[in-house]
Every structure is written in C-alpha cells, then in structure tokens.
C-alpha cells in the first residue's frame, strides 16, 4: 500500500459510493478499464486527466446517465450506500434523484427561473405551492444565486448570464435534495470571476453533499477537491488525497501530467 493510499484509508470515515471492476464500452470500444474507486461522503473528489481519458464517461456511469446512450454498456458494480445501482430492479430514475448532475454547458430550461428550480419537485409529485416556493428559495440560496434573482423569479432563465445560468443549474439540482452531485467540468465555459464563484460554492456544498467533479484545470482540482483521481487512457492511474497527489505523486504518469508535460 502506497503512502497516499494509506492516507486515504485513514481519512475515510465514510464511503458514499464504491465502484468495482467498472468497464465501460461504446459499441466495441472500451472507454473505461477496470476502475476501482471509493468516493468519500461529504467531500469533493476531482477526476482529472487528458481529454478522451474517459473521466466524463465514468462520471456519467455514477448516476446511470449512460443509459440514455444506446451504444453504451457498463459492466462491474457501482455501489451507492452499499447497493449496486446497476442491479436488476433498481430504477434509474430513483438513482438520478439521489445522484444529481450538473453539466459542462449550462442547460436551463426555456422557462422562468422559478419553474427551472421547481421542475424536479413537480415531476417528483410535489403539489404544495408553499413547499415548492420555500424549496426554490432555499435552493437558490444554497447555490448563492438568491440575492441576484429574488426580484425576477418569473423572468426567463435564458436572460441570466452564463455564470448565473450554471448556478441556476446547481440550484435546480439541489432542489430535489440529492445525496451526491456529479459535476462535469461545470466552470469550463465561464470567465474567471464566474469560475471563482462556482468554486467557492463547491467548497460550501461539500459540508452537506458528496461531490464528484470532472475538471480540466489542475489548479481547480487543487483548489476545490479533497481527493483526486487521475485517469489516463481509460484507466485509473492514481488516486489519493489532493495535497498528496499534487506534491508527491507516486506514479510517473501522474507527475508528468500534473507538471504539465503532456495533456
């Protein structure tokens, strides 16, 4: 056991998700090869690696979003609180309510700000208007957007700036009370100021949620995450506490990537 792995074992008080022997295929192409990874509860895990290394594919397997891609096949076990989310009889809809997702490109619905956040509640069967209004406010506050939009909740979400739209998507995700939030390069299309706000938000959300974030930016991974997993060519090369990974990586590949020699 390497030093960083030991540190992980010590630091882990609670494992939220475990993946075992995960292989993911697109048709005949294998995108992910034998990935074993534990995701710690109420912490931020960053997935890094060069483009095409499979980190986004892996992320989308954690809430069964890959089910929507017809050619995609997932093998192995992905456990959420010890239960395999790919078991027969597990409803992917239920999985996605517990494991929310924020996408690379902000994708608000062409509806009002309020209706965007309320969407998940309404499709979940919530009818009580007071409950919905309260949850919308709480979620917008949770996503640090409330003060900017509280006076125009009924105007179109498409009128917001890029950074605000992405925080709206986070609020929309928070509204259904997920346990885990997956983020697929959530700040890659934003300017530095908006990115800083998102990163600050992620650090706050860590208190209550388990967050897995895919990022292209090494600095971002270093700033926001507690643990980092380095993917290369569909394989998990190294995983450890973020400060260890960035100061004393054990694998040569990791070091080369982190120091910017490739990728």
């Amino acid at each position, binding site marked *: 056991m390497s030093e960083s792995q030991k540190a992980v074992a010590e630091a882990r008080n609670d494992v939220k998700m475990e993946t075992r022997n995960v292989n993911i295929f697109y048709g005949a192409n294998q995108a992910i090869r034998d990935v074993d990874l534990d995701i710690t509860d109420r912490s931020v895990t960053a997935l890094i690696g060069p483009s095409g290394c499979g980190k986004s594919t892996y992320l989308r397997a954690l809430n069964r979003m890959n089910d929507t891609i*017809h050619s995609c096949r997932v093998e192995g076990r992905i456990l959420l609180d010890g239960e395999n989310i790919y078991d027969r009889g597990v409803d992917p809809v239920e999985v996605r309510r517990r494991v929310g997702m924020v996408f690379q490109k902000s994708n608000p619905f*062409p509806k009002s700000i309020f209706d965007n956040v309320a*969407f998940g509640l309404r*499709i979940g069967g919530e009818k009580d208007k007071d409950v919905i209004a309260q949850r919308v406010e709480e979620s917008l506050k949770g996503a640090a957007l409330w003060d900017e939009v509280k006076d125009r909740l009924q105007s179109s979400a498409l009128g917001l700036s890029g950074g605000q739209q992405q925080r709206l998507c986070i609020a929309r995700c928070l509204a259904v009370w997920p346990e885990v939030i997956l983020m697929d390069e959530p700040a890659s299309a934003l300017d530095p100021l908006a990115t800083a706000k998102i990163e600050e938000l992620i650090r706050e959300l860590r208190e209550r949620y388990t967050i897995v974030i895919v990022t292209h930016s090494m600095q971002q991974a270093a700033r926001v995450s507690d643990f980092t997993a380095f993917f290369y060519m569909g394989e998990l090369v190294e995983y450890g506490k973020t400060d260890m990974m960035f100061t004393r990586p054990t694998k040569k590949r990791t070091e080369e990537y982190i120091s910017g020699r490739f990728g």
Partner: protein
Amino acid sequence: MRHTKQDWLLAGLTGVSLAVILLLLAVLLGQIFWHGAPVISAQFLTESPGADMISGGIWPAIYGTVFMTLLMTIAGVPVGIATAIFLSEYASPRSRIAKAVRIAVNNLAGVPSIVFGLFGLGFFIIFVGGGVDALLYDDPRPVWGKPSILWASLTLAVLTLPVVIVTTEEALRTVPRELRDASLALGATRFQTVYKIVLPNAKGGILTGVILAVSRGAGEVSPIIFCGAANFLPYLPTDLRDMFMHLGYHVYALATQSPNVDAARPTLFGTVLVLLVLTFSLNLLAVIIRSRSRAALRP
C-alpha cells in the same frame, strides 16, 4: 468584391426564374380573384346549390370540406405525432422496427394521391365497412360499406400521415439533447421528459407541420373521389355515413359535369377562390405560429 462573368450570369438566371415564378403566381391568383370575387356574396356562401349546380351557393361544399378536414385531423394527427415521438424519443437509432417505419413513411410520402383513393375504397369501404356490414346486418344494402365522409376523412388522414410524422420528428430533433439530459438527471422519467420538456419546446414546429399537412389534405380531391365526395348533394351531412360535398370536388364537377360549362364559369371561380382562402388562411396560421414559437425561444 469583384464580380466575375459567372456571377452576373448566375444572378441573371436566378433573377429571371424568380420573376417567372412571381409572374405565374400573380397571373394565377389575379385571374381567380378577378373572376371569382364578383360571385362572392352572403347568399353564395350560405345557400345550397340549385338543381343546375350553377345558381345558388356552395355552403354544403364549404361545410363538407371543413367537417372532413376536422375528422381527418382528429384521426390522423395524433397517430402521426405518436409515431414521430416513438421514432425520435424511444426507438434506438439502430432499431429494425424504427428503420422499417421510416422506410414505410418515406415510401408512403411518394405514393400518388389517386392511389390513396383506391386504397380507401379497397381497404376502408370494401374491407372494413363491408366487413362490419357482413358482421352486423342481414340487409344486403350497405350501411357502412359505402362511400361516406368517415371513409374519405380516414383516407386523407393516411395521406397526410407521412407529412405529419416527418415534420414532427424534425421538430423534436431541434430540441437540444442537453435539455433532455437535464430533465433526466433531475429524476424525470422518459415520459415526463417528453411531455414536460421535449413537446413544449417542439410545439411550434409540430403545429406548423401539422397545419401544413392538414391544409394540403383539405385541398386534395383525387383520394376522395371514390370515398365519399358527392357530385351534387344540396343538404348537409349529419351522420358519419353520409356522403358530402367538397369544394375541390365541386370545382371538378362544375368544370366537367355541368350541363353548361360556360355558364358555370363564374361559380367555378368563386368556388376556387373560397377554397384558396381556406387553405391560405391555414398556411398563414402556420406562419404566425412558427414566428411566435421562434420568438418564444429568445430570452
């Protein structure tokens, strides 16, 4: 920018073609309006035709056309939209069923409309109608197995089906994948995603396509010749099994079956004008809906 000889030539050719088309359209519409407008009166629009078909009005034909168009829409459009939703949202891109349906739809779109008429006669009237008669009635006189507004409408519904399917599928495809993903990631089922996100966002495109298909169906004559349109029937259909008058068919009848073709000409032009106004207003409606739905997508 430097213009070469070819540029000028191309610009000239396209300009001439445009002028020819505009001229043809202007002459056609001008002619119809010129001869047709004087005939239009309250009496013409609200009365039944006289025994000579020339005097009186065309109300039964207007009523029949509108009634048939409504029936056709009710029968065909939901099926078409449902098929398009299946193809675009549920079927896997490599599914054999989806492929077969697509091929069938494309071929259906290329079938001449008179063939649909024969299909209506053979399938709806003789097979379905005749079958019902044989099952339910002892009487040798047909009850369902004869031309009627019901069978004509169903025949036209089949005719418009491919257009509805293709345009609806296209409209569904314009809804970005990101919106579907967002909805699914929030724990929406596939049905909720289609119903709450995809359909509302494709509404404008679907409506436009549906209206254009319906307006095409409303003006078709050849499929209904065998299936229920009547030459001369100066009362209104009150039952689905009644035959009916139709504006397009009335034009054909006036032009070819009238005892005095020359005397029928003003009535003929009046009828054409009414038919054009009906289909043009449907098209106009489609244009308005399309521009509105485009505006709605902007913030």
